[in-house]
């Protein structure tokens, strides 16, 4: 397996990431991250102003799993489908062998039997590390333009 962190590897990674979330395979979601990774969903208003508040800020596999438990067992919500459309990543190699990358995303929400809505639009700001199992996220920050969330956001972006 080619473990190089190149353009094709990152785009493949994002395609698999989207497929994981869009099929609702949430148990597999932490596998895209390093064990101590950071995952944040933050409004552009806060991000641009340097304010730390996120709508979700998770540190490490434990918190990612707590979120999954919440989705499956504790968060009351009307279920919905997600559909991610992720653009080609803009990648920048770092001196330590990792890379930073940015990719635009649009997530559509469809309640079963309902119409589709543009749910959340933004960009991933990522930091990838090469591992024997392929690229893994050390950091994924979802900076969203859609500052007015359509009621609640349950599933990861």
């Amino acid at each position: 397996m080619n473990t190089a962190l190149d353009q094709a590897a990152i785009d493949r990674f994002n395609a698999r990431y989207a497929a994981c979330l869009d099929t609702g395979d949430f148990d597999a979601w932490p596998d895209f991250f390093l064990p101590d990774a950071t995952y944040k969903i933050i409004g552009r208003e806060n991000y641009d102003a340097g304010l730390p508040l996120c709508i979700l800020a998770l540190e490490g596999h434990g918190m990612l799993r707590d979120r999954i438990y919440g989705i499956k067992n504790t968060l009351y919500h009307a279920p919905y489908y997600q559909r991610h459309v992720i653009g080609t990543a803009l990648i920048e190699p770092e001196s330590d062998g990792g890379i930073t990358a940015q990719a635009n995303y649009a997530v559509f929400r469809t309640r079963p039997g309902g119409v589709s809505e543009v749910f959340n639009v933004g960009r991933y700001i990522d930091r990838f590390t090469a591992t024997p199992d392929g690229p893994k996220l050390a950091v994924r920050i979802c900076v969203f333009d859609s500052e007015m969330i359509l009621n609640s956001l349950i599933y990861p972006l």
Partner: protein
Amino acid sequence: MNAPHHVAQTRWTEPGSSRIPYWAYTDPDIYQRELQHFFYGPHWCYVGLEAELPAFGDYRLSFVGERQVIVVRQRDGTIAVMENRCAHRGVRFCQQQRGKARSFVCPYHQWTYKLNGDLAGLPFRQGVERDGEKQGGMPADFDMQAHGLVKLRVARYGGLIFASFSDATPSFEDYIGPAVMPWLDRIFKGRELTLLGVNRQRIPGNWKLMMENIKDPYHPGLLHTWFVTFGLWRADQRSRMVMDEHGRHAVMISQRNQGGASSVTEGVTSFKADMALNDPRLLDVVPEPWWNGPSVTMITLFPSLIIQQQVNSLSTRHIVPAGPGAFDFIWTHFGFKDDSEEMTQRRLRQANLFGPAGFVSADDGEVIELSQDGFRQRGADGSTLCELDGRGVAPTEHMVTETLIRGMYGYWRKELGL
């Protein structure tokens, strides 16, 4: 042909305030009366935190009801609040959510306003001279002072900013009243706030449903798994329900316990006996000296503000109505100037419980949407039932009650003359 028979179904036929007719949540005329009386009438409405405007000229846009306002720091440190609407042609001219200004200029005809809303100048007021002759201009009796922006009265309390369109609004202290004021003082008195950030969500339900949600101590230990399982809010805790003399403002006060199974979790499907966090940092609660007992106080200041202290997480939640069937809900999380770095991190981690994606609060937005769906499908002739702990209105020393909701609707009904 007969026209469909239409009778306005907005008469309150039941006694008291323990049955709330569905039209209170859906009727557009009632909604307009609410805007006029509560949001534009003699009430203080929340518009932001002082920490958002640290320096002279700092401004932000906010809302009082559906009216957008500009909140701006003055040279002398005071705060001015004025409607974002040009006195000339009604343009909502200021378009930056936040910024720093020396003056405000409407782009349409360059009418210019001072930071306090006074009209500073306008092009061609004296007309244009051509061949020694004056052409056009405003009438000689045009009064600059009468054509500023609409200015609101401002009340500042403990780093919070409130505004009112009405001259009849009492002083802020009198508005809040002696029963609720100590609970504000407990959080805010003598402290400087720091801004952690803002989250926004649009909830497709009537704005009062959010006020009700935070006057409803019955639901948190039933709907919210985290609250019942981890002992953050449940019926076997020591609690108090406080309200002002009008029944409009309230505080739900409680003290956390260790959670786990007890008589109040029997048959409660949201209770998860074997649930443990993979990462306990999400709920790394450290009591703060100022708590002085209660670990949670949820304050509703009618009509526009909820103030949350739930363990180490602090926020204001601003209600911005958008028609009878929707409102925007704006969360501003804050800390205190003397917080350690660890405490700031803790507040931010616990923020995962709240807001539009919160482990707890996401439930509330969802349920409010479903409530409005229920009202809509039935039409005006249904009503909600609100009789836990009787039909009257009085403070309680427990949480097995809907008294605070009845208190609010008693006030609402009286004020609207329904």
